[in-house]
């Protein structure tokens, strides 16, 4: 089975469970490659990919780049800050310019919702959405699902709490769309001003009380709170936010004993998560980053024409 029939990966919302499982399964042998002494396979030799990030990123951009390199694809990063974008070049022209250099695949992150879809419509390159505004961050959800499945053995029937700024979080949306396809019970918790309207229609339960939301859960995914949200009047202070929503060792006791703690990074220690929890035994935050490389390798491999059998045999 391949992912070739899919030109782009723009969001989890329109993906099938089978497609998600294929990617997660393919990521298992990819993770083995990362652990090898010689971390290079020729699977994508002769393929070229470019990452185009209109927003800052440490993990996502670097992991896409190294994922491509481990698979022998030629990988280029467009440094938006020093590119012609700063001279006012339109997105459409930028994409066209990149396309005609012969790239097979573009990874794009943009601060505005729907931009990956716009790019995909306007290019023959395959497009992977590395985060579009407040919409989706599909590869983050894939690596979160991979991390959970690896530790728990399955996703089926797990209770997962997603905590924080649900309104602006593309990580939350992609996780909700993904986990709900695997029959998880999803809870979202956060202040009422950061809860999107009619969120429960997405098949989740919403909580203002973090304690209630954490009761008996298998997984807690803590979202980053952006300081600008306080300045725009959505909550009164980081201090009050931390009092109400910071994941602390005390609060962790409400969850199951073997609860997993995830965070997409970068963390605000002492705001949405305490250092004890972030660095504690239940945290898989660092492993998420490794898994991010594996999942992105799987995705690049499947989208640029690889079949899963090639890598496992």
């Amino acid at each position, binding site marked *: 089975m391949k992912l070739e029939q899919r030109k782009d990966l723009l969001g989890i919302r329109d993906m099938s469970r089978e497609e998600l499982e294929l990617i997660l399964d393919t990521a298992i042998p990819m993770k083995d490659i990362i652990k090898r002494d010689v971390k290079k396979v020729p699977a994508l030799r002769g393929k070229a990919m470019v990452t185009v990030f209109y927003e800052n990123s440490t993990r996502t951009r670097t992991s896409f780049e190294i994922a491509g390199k481990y698979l022998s694809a030629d990988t280029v990063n467009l440094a938006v800050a020093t590119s012609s974008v700063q001279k006012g070049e339109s997105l459409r022209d930028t994409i066209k310019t990149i396309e005609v250099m012969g790239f097979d695949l573009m990874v794009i992150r943009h601060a505005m919702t729907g931009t990956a879809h716009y790019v995909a419509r306007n290019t023959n390159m395959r497009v992977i959405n590395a985060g579009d*505004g407040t*919409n989706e961050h599909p590869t983050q959800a894939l690596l979160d699902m991979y991390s959970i499945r690896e530790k728990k053995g399955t996703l089926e029937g797990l209770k997962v709490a997603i905590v924080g700024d649900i309104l602006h979080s593309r990580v939350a949306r992609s996780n909700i769309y993904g986990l709900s396809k695997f029959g998880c019970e999803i809870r979202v918790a956060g202040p009422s001003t950061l809860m999107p309207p009619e969120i429960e229609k997405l098949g989740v339960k919403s909580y203002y009380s973090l304690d209630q939301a954490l009761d008996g859960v298998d997984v807690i995914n803590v979202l980053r709170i952006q300081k600008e949200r306080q300045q725009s009047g959505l909550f009164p202070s980081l201090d009050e936010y931390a009092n109400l929503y910071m994941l602390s060792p005390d609060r962790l006791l409400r969850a199951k004993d073997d609860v997993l703690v995830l965070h997409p990074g970068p963390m605000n220690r002492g705001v949405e998560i305490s250092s004890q929890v972030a660095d504690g035994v239940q945290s898989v935050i660092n492993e998420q980053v490794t898994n991010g490389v594996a999942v992105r390798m799987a995705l690049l491999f499947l989208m640029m024409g690889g079949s899963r059998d090639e890598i496992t045999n």
Partner: protein
Amino acid sequence: MKLLIRGGRVIDPANDIDGIMDILVADGKIIEVNENISDEGYVLVDAGGKIVCPGFIDMHVHLREPGFEYKEDIASGTRAAAAGGFTTVCCMPNTDPVIDNASTAIFVRERAAKSGVVNVLPIGCISKGQAGSELTEMAELIAAGCVAVSDDGKPVKNAALMRNAMDYAKMFDLPVLSHCEEQSLAADGQMHEGYYSTLYGFKGIPAAAEELMVSREIILAELTGAHVHICHASTRGSLEMIREAKAMGVDVTCEVTPHHLLLTDEIVGSYDADTKVNPPLRSTEHVQALRRGLLDGTVDCIATDHAPHHMESKDCEYNLASFGISGLETAVAAVMDGLVNQGLLDVEQMVQLFTIGPAEVLGIDKGTLDVGADADITILDPTMVKVVDPANFYSKGKNTPFKGQTLKGWPWMTIVKGTIIVNGGKIV
């Protein structure tokens, strides 16, 4: 020149006419509306199977001239109007310079006389420079041909100024048109706030952003006794307040657009900026409320808010795209197909909403087939089926979410002051 329009179903709601009749036109005026008119020396228009109406009026369009001719100009915009079945359009003053003084209004009318093909009635600004601080010279604007005042896309924030504007306009029976938007609530919003904004990950514009301002305008209209007209009402709450205010005797009228009547926020999931419009496409409950408002008389007229844009301001990131839909050339067909053909609106009611409805809002001598009136006539072909293809638009604005839709029932002929401007859906 004489025209005899023979054998069409004539619908003239103002005169309570609905039947197979002939219309005789001479020297730009309507001479006779009757069964089996006999005369000679005329050009015959065989209107068998067609619906013959008073010329349609669109009281809310953006012709973009002067200042934004790359988006639209009076020549292209009035051709789009004619092709869309409209014989009269009212153009909003957010041009560059804005229509806040007599000379700009006169410029627009002179340009329309020279390069336009339909009647163009300018709307003047409420405040100088649309800046929301000082009133315009409304008496001069009226003398220059303005039929209403509005700051349109820049709603008057200051309630005291709006009160004064209404109070002052009342002296001249001048309607004050309000684009109702509390901008602090709507800020950065891209689509209607609700389930689909959550699903698609957009910042929403709540219905309350419109409704807050509708409530203010109604309260100020009651206070001043002025006539306030709510532009592009799009929410259930707005309609409820307008309905109640009308019942209380407040002088409030409103328009709705074809896109708010026919499309919902679900289509924003295409992430295609042609779906981006302000007020935004709403959810089904609001659409249903607007449709009820058409039937019970809460809605006075249908207007397009024709907002042509240059390709670059739509073919881009959704957040960066301009708000607006190029509506003149799809309005009538969309309403025919989506409401009339579905049995949701009588064709007589539709004709009223496009003719005497807006004429009464504006207090203009249009929208009827009265003997002696200007021979502005719109003829519809209820059987014509066409796919909406923006490439064929006369408008420079190709931005329409109706693109690709197959619609049945189109404007067939447009006659302005006795001259055939459009025949078979095409400019003559």
